[in-house]
């Protein structure tokens, strides 16, 4: 419950489920950043999460930066920057040839 407005806070994002302890949570976040880096790099984007704060920072090569709180927000922001969604079934990820 939010003490200011009295509304229940939004539930944690589904991708954050499954962390048993604060340690798991930080470990999960760093792992997430590690997985995201090469995926986003192939679209010219970088992501930064130092484990503190609540979200992470998405940036492109021209220095445009967006702060996002959840993975869903991250994919929406990425789509806005690159003009199309990051698609895991794109041939660069799902194609027959092994991806570098």
């Amino acid at each position, binding site marked *: 419950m939010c003490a200011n407005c009295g509304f229940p806070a939004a539930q*944690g994002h589904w991708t954050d*489920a499954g962390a048993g302890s604060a340690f798991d949570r930080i470990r*999960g976040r760093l*792992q*997430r950043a590690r*997985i995201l880096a090469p995926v986003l790099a192939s679209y010219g984007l970088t992501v930064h999460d130092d484990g503190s704060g609540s979200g992470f920072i998405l940036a492109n090569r021209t220095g445009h930066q967006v702060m996002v709180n959840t993975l*869903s927000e991250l994919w929406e922001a990425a789509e806005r920057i690159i003009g199309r*969604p990051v698609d895991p*079934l794109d041939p660069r990820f*799902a194609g027959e040839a092994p991806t570098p």
Partner: protein
Amino acid sequence: MRLTILGGFLGSGKSTWLRHHLHHGLLRDALVVVNEAADAPVDDALLVGSTRLRVLAGGCACCETRPALVALLRDICDDRVGGDGSAPRIDHIVLETSGLADPGRITDCIVTDRVLQHHIVVGEIIVTVDALHGLGQLRDEDLGRRQIETADRLVVTKVDVAQLERLRRLIATLRVLNPGAALSGSAMGSPTELPDALGGDAETPPVVGAYGAGVPIRAAAIDLGKTLDWPALAVWLSALIHARGDDILRIKGSVRTPRGRILLQSVRKVVQSPEILPDEPVAGDNRDGLLVLIGRRFTAGELVRSLNAFGIGGVAAIEAGAASANVRRPSHEDG
């Protein structure tokens, strides 16, 4: 509170099935909410004998009376939290939808409502399919198909009066449309054996809607292996749902995390908050480390290659025949 959604096409036997189970089965202590598209409720008359019944008439809860459904469910939550303890506590709600409802949209409105999401867990989606008219409805009605695609459990009703050949063809078709769902039969509400679907030719009904017309819906089952990293899978899944949410109709799976096994479920772009499962798989429940995706425009091979590209190794596609054997079997059929 757990919410069981009972859906199915108009006249497919929802109330009959529910009535039988209210008197004999596990649903005996549940609060029943009946939604009817028509203004004059009839179904509640069929369900006398249920001690706790609320009726929502005059519109289908997945569209026009959606606000009324939310208000009613919030009311039930209030009663449960603020009651004086004199009324028996409600732990289970059964929502019988109107025959025109898309259960996926009802799930959607519950998990996105900021009060209900804290009180209600959408458990099983049960969809009844009429053994006499089911095939015809699938041919003509896009809705009938959407209902079947979102089900966790399909109950084929009126088995006692259906021709064997037709029944076999229907079962084979249901297996193709929703290979992940448990399938059982019912006659006048009582559980009945279903004939073997072998020998039945599956029909591929045309998709009526504009989007995805003619593109077949397939299911892919993926064995996630024992050493899965959940944060990595969450990255992959969230990207997939964002980019392909209109094509991926349903995802179900169980994944091991530091907190235990969690049950993942999504209907189109909506992901339910994952549920923690009992730690040891129940006998006959082989879902551990299994992910089932139902939708169009992807193959199991593409999914596996994509998972690997996202740094998730040790995963393998499960052959179509084996997949349906691995997903939840009807665990209890009460009499």
